[in-house]
């Protein structure tokens, strides 16, 4: 097997909570292992509060993990702190496209400056002609018309802003592009354009993608492998088609059954009621899904299930998978 581009091992992030109460910890991300191969597109799904966004920030090195390591091409990036990592050349290799392009672009920057900014900051490009050439190339790659380059974000449509967000992420030629709900703020007709653009860019530039979305129909379109998170832990990893046709974890099954599908109108499908357990100091010996899980036995309350292999690239963390 070739060396993975990104290899996260036992990645953990905890936040102290409760002010006066000493020692209470919110387990946002708990011992997550994740690998992404060069050129691979991995999907990350799970409900709000499951730790997707925290994991994204950890992998992008925007925050420091409580414990665990992230290897980029075999080199441990977590050996240096997040504050030092910002100044290192590897910083440019992982880029993020944020959720809402209207809020993640600087409103007082013209499109040109928004795209040029990462070039100046991360790669230290100072030469104006070189800067212009690279900005224009990135704009062209994302299909942004030249006349829009001098505009401000408020003069652009939602789809155009999304293109700017993608252009400024790919302009530094990253190896890994993290897409955090890149189309959730867009109408379906615009979403279709952006999804096709992302598929096209990946084919042309050979980047790896980590695609975070709550819409499984969207994740399915672009990703070859999907990671399902629940309450800070990875509960299932599987090749895309296998995840949809033969899900092993009860949470994944409920998630897939919840996708609205006119073709399955009126069919009784498993529903997931209630809310997740508290992420504050969870019992390390109880499955996080216990209490909400339709199976749920005594064993689930006394032993945390490990992520076990069930086939080529298929892993699930459930005693009854």
């Amino acid at each position, binding site marked *: 097997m070739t060396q993975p581009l990104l290899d996260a091992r036992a990645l953990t992030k905890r936040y102290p909570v409760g002010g006066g109460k000493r020692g209470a910890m919110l387990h946002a991300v708990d011992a997550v292992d994740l690998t992404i191969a060069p050129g691979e597109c991995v999907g990350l799904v799970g409900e709000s509060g499951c730790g997707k966004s925290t994991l994204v920030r950890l992998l992008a090195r925007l925050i420091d993990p409580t414990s665990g390591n992230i290897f980029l091409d075999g080199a441990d990036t977590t050996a240096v702190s997040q504050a030092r990592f910002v100044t290192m050349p590897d910083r440019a290799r992982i880029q993020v496209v944020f959720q809402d392009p209207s809020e993640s672009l600087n409103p007082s920057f013209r499109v040109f400056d928004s795209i040029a900014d990462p070039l100046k900051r991360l790669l230290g490009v100072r030469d104006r002609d070189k800067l212009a050439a690279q900005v224009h190339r990135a704009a062209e790659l994302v299909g942004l018309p030249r006349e829009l380059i001098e505009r401000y974000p408020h003069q652009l449509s939602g789809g155009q802003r999304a293109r700017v967000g993608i252009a400024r992420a790919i302009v530094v030629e990253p190896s890994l592009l993290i897409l955090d709900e890149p189309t959730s703020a867009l109408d379906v*007709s615009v979403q*279709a354009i952006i999804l096709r653009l992302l598929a096209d860019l990946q084919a042309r530039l050979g980047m790896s993608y980590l695609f975070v979305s709550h819409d499984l129909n969207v994740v399915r379109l672009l990703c070859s492998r999907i990671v399902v998170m629940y309450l800070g832990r990875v509960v299932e990893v599987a090749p895309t088609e296998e995840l949809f046709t033969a899900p092993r974890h009860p949470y994944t099954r409920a998630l897939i059954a919840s*996708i609205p599908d*006119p073709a399955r109108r009126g069919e009784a499908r498993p529903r*997931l009621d209630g809310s997740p357990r508290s992420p504050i100091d969870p019992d390390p010996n109880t499955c996080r899904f216990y209490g909400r899980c339709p199976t749920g036995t005594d064993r689930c309350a006394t032993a945390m299930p490990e992520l076990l292999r069930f086939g080529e690239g298929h892993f699930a963390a459930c005693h009854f998978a």
Partner: protein
Amino acid sequence: MTAQLTIEDFSLVFRTRHGTVRALEDVSLSVERGEIVGVVGESGSGKSVLAYAVMGLQDAAARVQGGRILFGGLDMLGAGEQALADVRGRELAMIFQSPRTALNPIRKVGAQIEDILREHANLPSRELRKHAIAALARVRIPDPERRYNAYPFELSGGMCQRVMIAMALACSPFLLIADEPTTGLDVTTQAVIMDLIRDMSRDQRMSTLLITHDLGLAGEYCDRIAVMHAGHMVEIAPVEELLSRPAHPYTRQLLAATPTPRSTVEGLVSIPGQLPDLRRDLPPCRFSARCERHVALCDEAPLPWTSLSATHLVRCRVPL
């Protein structure tokens, strides 16, 4: 016909500093008893404006240009404020898009449900609490006695949405208007909430107008779907028919742009162009500039409805 709601040739404009926005033009739609009708369209299509107009809630800048909205026997546009206040909350209820902003943040949810019951249900005050708890239990909120005393911030988004639904359903309304009731909720919660709305419609013969941008969601839960584009209603049909044999070019493209479990990224179609500026002079068909089937006839006013069957109507000169 015993339509619970009838909207006929309804037109509404907004007068703004930047010109008159023709937000709705000649919109017609009816909802029968016990029926779930979806209004589907992209942002800016006018679907929320329509929902608010049915409730009799209009922005100060809004001007009704023509048409009628009949709720049961009541003319919603001609009725006085008192008559509207009487039906709202009791016979006509609405679920708003974001439950966190629609609920009063400094009152307990139980007290907020009691407010509605006190106003509309004609119950002795000692019974209010019992009925409020029953309303919470009906939307399957676990442990309703305890949740009765919760403030909105203590509840998750899904729970807040259920409280909103409990409030809307507290007086067993005849018509429920659900404006994007599951936006911002997880798919698992969305499924539970939508099941709940569907069951209430079936069990109590409640009519529902579901406003959504999600064709997949409308396709699973609605009996009929009305598609809106730029303030026009362009097609109305029973769900299966609309999904399998769309007649309006816009409906077909909207369907092709919506990812389903069977889509491929190459198969996704984007809709060329943008919504027209509703302040300008507009052609009879507001989709004509984006339409590949456009012919000279399309520019002749007025644009008629074409009946493909008794229940399938399309507003297009050259339907598919």
